[in-house]
């Protein structure tokens, strides 16, 4: 089974700082990769995803992620964070199994942005 590792469990940044959240996965085959975000009091929602093509993926709210196959990585970046980016971020990878795909999630990274 695949595993997903997120390097940091808690990150604290000041507004306008740059963000990079690390994510590594274990599967060596074709992968579909996701970042989901959960804002305080809200549903978990998709931030961006990669399934083919350009390894640099752009998502909502100025986030992007780069798929580096040789490093089994899918790191999330944002050049300048805002207070409203305070949330928990989950990296995820889809694994093909009996009857379809299931998603394996990382443990999550809690980001706190100081105003």
């Amino acid at each position, binding site marked *: 089974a695949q595993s997903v590792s*997120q390097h940091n469990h808690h990150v604290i940044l000041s507004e306008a700082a740059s963000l990079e959240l690390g994510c590594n996965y274990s599967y060596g085959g074709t992968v*579909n990769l996701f970042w*989901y975000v959960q804002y305080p009091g809200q*549903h978990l929602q998709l931030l961006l*995803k990669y399934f083919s093509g350009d390894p640099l993926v752009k998502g909502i709210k100025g986030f992007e992620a780069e798929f580096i196959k040789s490093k089994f990585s899918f790191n999330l970046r944002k050049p300048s964070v805002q207070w409203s980016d305070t949330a928990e971020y989950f990296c995820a990878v*889809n694994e093909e199994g009996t009857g*379809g795909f299931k998603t394996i*999630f990382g443990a*999550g990274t809690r980001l706190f942005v100081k105003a």
Partner: protein
Amino acid sequence: DVKVTQSSRYLVKRTGEKVFLECVQDMDHENMFWYRQDPGLGLRLIYFSYDVKMKEKGDIPEGYSVSREKKERFSLILESASTNQTSMYLCASSLFALAGADTQYFGPGTRLTVL
């Protein structure tokens, strides 16, 4: 907009009780999932279903069962609740059974406390 609803936001039960968590999606999605979310562990898949009356075990199915009698409804059952099942339970759905790049849409979660 896809809407995934869960029957309760908060639930308190006693050890040994049978507990039903209900999830309904309104977008004719084929796939439905039940996760539990615990701090530092991320989301862990309990069960998923890719069609009516079909179910597959996830990573932590012990102590749980599921039912999917209708396409839009997926129920999680705790046959005899225990204190280690105190957690946040998230339901999700996605459109295609065989598409690895599917986005999952999440409900608001049910916070279950077992005393």
